[in-house]
């Protein structure tokens, strides 16, 4: 327990090291394009998330050269970042990952942590969050020691959109997602 000014005890237990973790910006190497690559989708269970991810997956295979959507899983606990076994499974079964949709307090933060975990394991990842959760996403990026981590932002809310609106949203974001996953610039 660190003692501080005036003998007042610190209630955080964090200590200076954890408060100011050095940035570790491990990004996976980007492929030049998605041509022939396998796409993994990780659904965080929030309403419309899986529909959105599948719509993006369709666009990547039909219009951006991806070979297939090769793995789709639903998180058991949307609040908790992916563990080693999930990361390993994705690394085995796909070449790039798309995850989200961060549309709630804890799942948005966890999605950012997921993206950072995939990148550190060498998998390019695109994390999708609604714009209402940028601050909590940034707070989690700092907790994970990757304060500058970037994700794909979309307009809030997502959960109340109709199926057609979700598909339209996927089309709007797909080029930015491709840009995030490859060396191509976002259009």
């Amino acid at each position, binding site marked *: 327990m660190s003692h501080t000014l005036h003998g007042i*005890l610190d209630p955080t237990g964090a200590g200076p090291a954890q408060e100011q973790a050095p940035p570790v910006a491990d990004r996976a190497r980007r492929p030049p394009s998605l041509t022939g690559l396998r796409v993994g989708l990780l659904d965080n269970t929030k309403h419309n998330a899986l529909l959105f991810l599948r719509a993006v997956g369709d666009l990547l295979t039909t219009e951006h050269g991806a070979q297939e959507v090769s793995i789709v899983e639903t998180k058991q606990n949307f609040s908790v970042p992916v563990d080693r076994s999930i990361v390993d499974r994705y690394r085995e079964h796909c070449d790039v990952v798309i995850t989200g949709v961060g549309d709630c307090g804890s799942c948005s933060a966890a999605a950012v942590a997921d993206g950072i975990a995939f990148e550190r394991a060498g998998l390019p990842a695109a994390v999708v969050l609604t714009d209402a959760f940028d601050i909590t996403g940034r707070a989690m990026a700092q907790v994970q020691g990757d304060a500058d981590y970037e994700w794909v932002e979309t307009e809030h809310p997502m959960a109340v959109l109709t199926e057609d609106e979700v598909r339209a949203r996927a089309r709007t974001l797909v080029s930015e997602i491709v840009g995030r996953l490859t060396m191509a610039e976002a259009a």
Partner: protein
Amino acid sequence: MDAGQNGHQGVDATMAQAAIEYAYDQGWSDGLPLVPATRELVDRFLAAGGRPADEVIGHLQQVDRTVTVELLAINAAMAGCRPEYFPVVLAAWRALTKERATSGGGWQSTSGPAPLVIVNGAIRKELGINHSGGVFGPGFRPNATIGRAIGLTVRNAYGIRPHELEQATQGLPGRWSIVVAENEEESPWPPLAEDLGVPGNAVITTLLRTCEFVDNRHTSDPEQLLADFADSIGRSGAWIFKHAGAGVVLCPEHAQLLARAGYSRRDVARWLVEHSGRTTAQLQAVGKDNAEQNGVRFPGQGEDPERFQPTLADPDKVIVAVAGSRNAGISMVVRYFADWSGTPVPVIGPEAAAITHDSSIPEEALHG
């Protein structure tokens, strides 16, 4: 009644103010002033709790932060608890960690849920935890500070702060102060924790979305009274998934009316499970008529419009507690954030430390 016990002589008020401002500057405060936690003060909490300082009593996976007995004690001291409250704080914290809702994203949720802590046993009176008039309201140090200790621990030890990792859309008033003792003296039933298998000093807890009053000074018919609760429990706005969780904290007048009519605590829970809800047509009007086993409700076609959809799933998960004054028929529906385990946790601490009203801990407790 505490005045004069803490050796007020010789206190430099300017220094006290500086210490309070220092704690604000560190970002430790929930908005109200904090008591500066010194080694000597925290050691008295640790002695009262009777647990090793470095014992880990909480870990939040997503932020990889840990709560130890020491950190809980520091935050309890800062919250304004007296050392002898610490066994109740420890039990409340342990009870919360057993609730599913706190192991996931509950503390970060847009719901901004509040811990409900209900205390049973002689320790209520020994510590002066309010169980009667204004039991949900302010004015009583243990009620106000035990819950605050939980809140400060979440903020400081887990690092979950509003506008950062804590994402409450609106939150709720009194989030960290919903601590009530049961009014065992005027309850017609055994203490709640005893009914659940833990007699004596114990706490039960869960996370709440809100508390909603039911004012019924209008009927002596038990079914009419229960129907008034069922109406509040069944309201559609509180519904997200197939079922929603809720309980009742009855005032003595309502509890006694029901007991006189032959209702046990279990009978009350069962009646509320059977009668709280809405028809499919009513739910269709708000876009919530379709429910699958998992996942949020969604708009459907309103098939079978008169079908009754029950709000509550299981009478064993309906809290029925008694608290408040006997001066009116005013009770509270307590609306769960997720669910309730139905598991009381005993309050354990060095007996001498737990029962003393004096702020100094006996020598044997310090070394026991």
